[in-house]
């Protein structure tokens, strides 16, 4: 699904974040990208979203070189990016409205897209249909994030990119949404890449974990965590061992 070929990326006048970096993620996999701040994890997400472009090297998504945002990729940010003047329902409809605005042009909208408008099933699936007529200021952070997820999933993405999506939420709501996100990705066959600085979140969500280090990142360091998302995983021995391993790895980085 995702192939990075000797990707190099640097912001002007600074150390490259990625230097000849290779990484592969298969279709339907869930990846957590873990690293300390400044390691380039958010930049990686923006590169995958087509909002930033590599200095050299290639990003292939689904076999095609990425040159601009791709209509089948959904991006969800920490700050939900909801329109303050639109209700939950209108916000959830926004992606579809943008698609209907362009029509199935293959650039902004997939070529096989059929105009659609109804987001009710998504509002119901995310448990926010009761708040459909509320404005973002009237609902909680968790509910706002659910609205942002509904908006993105209504576009039926095959790749979902999330940047610290749950970091401002309470622990209970966060775990709830982590579980729901994994469920939804499995239900819909979505490849998930979630960026986080939180070890527990990476270990709870990523069936694969990509650890980024102090730039420049040259080699992808991946950890397997196949039981992520299963019932009782958070209480398992494996989970605690993995968290410990990641913690040691990260502290080497910052030492």
């Amino acid at each position, binding site marked *: 699904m995702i192939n990075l070929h000797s990707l190099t990326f640097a912001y002007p006048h600074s150390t490259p974040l990625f230097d000849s970096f290779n990484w592969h993620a298969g279709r339907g996999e869930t990846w957590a990208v873990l690293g300390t701040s400044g390691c380039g994890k958010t930049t990686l997400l*923006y590169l995958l*979203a087509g*909002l930033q472009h590599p200095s050299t090297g290639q990003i292939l998504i689904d076999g095609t070189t990425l040159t601009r*945002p791709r*209509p089948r*990729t*959904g*991006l*969800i*940010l*920490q*700050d*939900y*990016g*909801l*329109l*303050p*003047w*639109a*209700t939950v329902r209108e916000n959830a409809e*926004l*992606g579809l*409205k*943008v*698609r209907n*605005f*362009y029509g199935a042009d293959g650039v*902004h*909208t997939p070529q096989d897209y059929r105009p659609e408008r109804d987001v009710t099933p998504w509002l119901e699936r995310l448990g926010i249909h009761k708040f459909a007529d*509320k*404005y973002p*200021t*009237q609902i909680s952070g968790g509910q706002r994030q659910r609205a*942002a997820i509904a*908006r*993105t999933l209504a*576009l039926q993405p095959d790749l979902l*990119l999330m940047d610290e999506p749950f970091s401002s939420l309470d622990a209970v709501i966060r775990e709830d949404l982590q579980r729901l996100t994994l469920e939804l990705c499995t239900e819909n066959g979505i490849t998930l890449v979630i960026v986080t600085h939180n070890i527990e979140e990476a270990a709870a969500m990523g069936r694969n974990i990509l650890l980024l280090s102090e730039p420049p990142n040259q080699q992808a360091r991946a950890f397997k965590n196949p039981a992520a998302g299963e019932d009782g995983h958070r209480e398992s021995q494996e989970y605690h061992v993995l968290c410990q391993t990641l913690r040691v790895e990260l502290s080497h980085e910052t030492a």
Partner: protein
Amino acid sequence: MKRRDVLLAGLGILVIWQIAAILVDRPILPTPVVVLEVFFRELRGELPSHFAASLWRVLAGMLLSVVTAVPVGLAIGGSKTLNRIFSPVIYLLYPIPKVVFVPIVLLFLGIGDLAKITVIFLILFFQIVVLVRDQAAGLAPQLLQSLRSLGAGRRALFRFVYLPASLPAILTALRQSVGTAVAVLYIAELFATRMGLGYYIYYNGSTLLDYPAMYAGVLAMSLLGLGLYFTVDWMERKLCPWKFVG
């Protein structure tokens, strides 16, 4: 603010006016009863056409400023380069009291409606540009990024973000400056015209010395300002309901 409180305040002002008129006891301050009587009599006379002339000038100025200032504000607010070039210009021009341009505009554009509309346009234009620019420049980058990631290009961003975001700015600008616009319209209507409430007030007050009629004109001009203010207020509630929830 409750409607009842506003009515009570209006009533209070009338009472104070009545008392002041009784105390002053001179023709230059007639009582509200006399003025209202003349006002309603004048409504069957020339007052409505003067009112219509003024209303047309304000509305035309408002419309012209909205359709020109919104694209300018959006363009400057949406582009760092344009912002860098034009913001110093606006910074210099914005605080100048536009009323001082009245004689100049009259010299250039003559005595017709165009000059008066232009004066109102000048006042509103800068106000709207500044507020729309700030609104557009203040949009959260996350909001724009998440829309771009949904497939939105420049046109869709304009349609779904910038344009709706500018609406409250337009209405705020109009609400803040509609009073000034009516005041400056009064000045503009003192020159070279025989139509409009400014002319009506001045002519009755200083030529005919018909003070009750002059006050009827003042009342009409106040109603014009108030009516516009309330209309903008009402539009804001209708068009921006999200600002009034919480």
